């Protein structure tokens, strides 16, 4: 039954994608189908809870089949669409890129190794036991989102988190999974596939494969591909949301508009704190669409990105009845000591140095360092060739990354240590550290696709193809 459950999830996601656009690559179809599919499954769980319908396999299967039928009954297989797919396949089969193939083999081996480790062990991490897996298991057992443990405050910290992550656990439990970690492997696969395709759009498959390898091998990220925690899966959504939005703004077209908007919505359906990414994205889209006088897209994007956030806030307030805003202390004012602690941790993470018990280099490898080096090189080149030539629309991507980081930093600055029952140092060494995952695909995307990298990879490609 688990295979049926996962297949339905993929089919549902695929149906939505084909409704958006027919020209998705195979990597995008596989990667995005799961992210959209599992996101929608948790929306079903949410709606069933509101309607007080008990979760069960038949109900979910019925809902899935009805949704897939509704999305695809008018879908006709166009000859040109098939030709497009066939051409794509033929081109890749004819001109084998041996370098990309070599890198793919390394990625496949690393993926296999972490997958067998992930699937062997049940979740045993403290956060998973106290929150995520507990919520997922009991949601499946009780057939509702607001489980009985809320009555005695035994639900754990993630009880107030939006339901995408623990809901995905509940979904596979409903379909008979012994442990829910299959979804971790599928989230990781989606992250890699989506990142690969979005980078490939700009610099070709060799560079895209190399940077996908760098992304996957980022030490802390790779370790999390075998843990039952929600940060790496959130990074998959943020990666798809921000980079699709950027690609849409940069290249135009409907495909990435819809994926950007949908993924942005699912990002806040995963964790409310990623509003730090949604707010700057809406601002950038607002500027672009205002200039283009396309108010319809502006409204649709804003609605898709913000509605899940407010829907969950309302659910927490009206049904769960737990105050969420109390996690923040808005009257904190200026605290030099707190700021110093936070900045010291940030310096360690971003510049790959040590602070207290953490070492940024050992956690994130070359991810952030290469980003800063790329910015410096391009800034240097901009003196010669002009900032517009060097940065172009990527200035908006950089603005998005820096604004999101500033907001994410502010969220942690405002956290009420007493309510959170943790010091700011311990939060920076744990939660903030894991939150840095969200930035890794974004900074690696910039490093791979910036002006200087494009020149470098163009030369490499010319050498490889002997052209």
């Amino acid at each position: 039954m688990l295979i049926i459950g996962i297949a339905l999830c993929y089919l549902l996601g695929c149906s939505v994608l084909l409704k958006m656009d027919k020209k998705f690559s195979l990597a995008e179809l596989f990667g995005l189908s799961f992210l959209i599919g599992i996101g929608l499954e948790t929306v079903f769980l949410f709606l069933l809870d509101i309607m007080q319908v008990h979760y069960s396999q038949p109900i979910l299967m019925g809902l899935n089949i009805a949704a897939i039928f509704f999305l695809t009954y008018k879908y006709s297989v166009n000859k040109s669409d098939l030709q497009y797919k066939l051409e794509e396949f033929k081109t890749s089969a004819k001109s084998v890129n041996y370098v990309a193939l070599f890198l793919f083999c390394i990625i496949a081996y690393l993926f296999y190794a972490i997958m067998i480790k992930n699937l062997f062990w049940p979740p045993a991490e403290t956060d998973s036991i106290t929150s995520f897996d507990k919520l997922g298991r009991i949601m499946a057992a009780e057939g509702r989102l607001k489980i009985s443990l809320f009555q005695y405050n035994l639900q754990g910290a993630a009880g107030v988190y939006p339901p995408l992550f623990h809901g995905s656990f509940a979904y596979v439990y409903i379909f008979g999974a012994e442990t829910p970690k299959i979804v971790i492997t599928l989230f990781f696969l989606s992250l890699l596939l989506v990142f690969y395709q979005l980078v490939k759009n700009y610099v070709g498959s060799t560079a895209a494969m190399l940077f996908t390898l760098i992304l996957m091998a980022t030490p802390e990220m790779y370790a999390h591909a075998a843990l039952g925690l929600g940060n790496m899966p959130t990074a998959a959504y943020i990666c798809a949301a921000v980079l699709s939005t950027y690609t849409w703004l940069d290249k135009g077209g409907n495909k990435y508009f819809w994926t950007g908007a949908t993924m942005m919505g699912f990002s806040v359906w995963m964790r409310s704190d990623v509003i730090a990414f949604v707010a700057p994205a809406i601002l950038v889209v607002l500027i672009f669409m205002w200039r283009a006088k396309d108010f319809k897209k502006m409204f649709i994007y804003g609605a898709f990105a913000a509605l899940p956030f407010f829907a969950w806030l309302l659910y927490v307030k009206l049904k769960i009845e737990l105050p969420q805003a109390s996690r923040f202390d808005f009257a904190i004012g200026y605290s030099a000591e707190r700021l110093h602690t936070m900045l010291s941790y940030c310096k360690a993470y971003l510049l790959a140095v040590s602070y207290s018990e953490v070492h940024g280099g050992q956690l994130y490898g070359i991810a952030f360092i290469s980003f800063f080096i790329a910015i410096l090189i391009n800034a240097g080149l901009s003196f010669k060739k002009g900032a517009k030539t060097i940065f172009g629309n990527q200035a908006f991507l950089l603005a998005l990354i820096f604004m999101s980081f500033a907001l994410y930093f502010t969220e942690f600055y405002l956290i009420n240590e007493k309510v959170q029952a943790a010091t700011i140092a311990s939060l920076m060494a744990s939660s903030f550290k894991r939150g840095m995952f969200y930035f890794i695909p974004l900074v690696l995307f910039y490093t791979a696709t910036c002006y200087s990298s494009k020149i470098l990879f163009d030369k490499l490609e010319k050498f490889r193809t002997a052209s």
Partner: protein
Amino acid sequence: MAKTKQDQQTDKGPKKPVNSSSPTSAPFTRSLIIIGALSVIFTAIYMLNAGYSDLRSLDQERRALQQNPSGNGQRLDELNHRIHDIETDTGFIKTLFFGYYYDVHSVAFGAQDQIDQAIADIKEDKTKFGQDNSGPITREDKLASKVHTFRLMDFVNANCPPNAVILLPPADSLSGNSKWNFIWDPMWVEYFIYPRLCIASGTEKLYPDLAKRITHVLIVKGIGYDKLPYEVPADKREPLCLMPIHKPTTDTTQTSN
């Protein structure tokens, strides 16, 4: 109409002289050169931290020699120097790539071995606890090998009805001992004992409804007898057991091994 790549090449003038080898061999050879260069870079990154893999065996050898140092002084000195060199070599580049080395060496190359070892350990544990180890390894077996208080939780489940409410031992007397990690935390314990409920010691006033329903007290390291409304003779106090909240007419103390 846009020109194809081939058209553009034709416009540039006559084609370059063709090599004697087949037309596809040049890109293939060039691909091999790039693959070779990448392999060298990856191997260099790996070797940069390869000394760490020797650390454990060197340390084991040193410990063995320290047991019997006579005549082994020179080797002990060599080992001390080697271990010192590895431990203090923390240059920026080296630490930048240490995580990648760990990913490949310990996680990727070691994944299957670690799983095989875990299966062997689990089977050994099952034999130790008198269970049949010929069957498949279950989720519970794996959790028991990861979470050292899992068997205690299992014991609680076996000796309490599903509607039981268990008072946990106080955190302040156990939190310093990693052996009893989280046994006082109701959020953590609840995962293992659901649908039974639990309540943290000292929070009875916060959750009066739950406190009223307490059916058992979990005694750990002999702590918790003061929470019982009846006296248990000193000679009958087990260090690790589950006590009913109401005085039983017969001895129903459940002790855990």
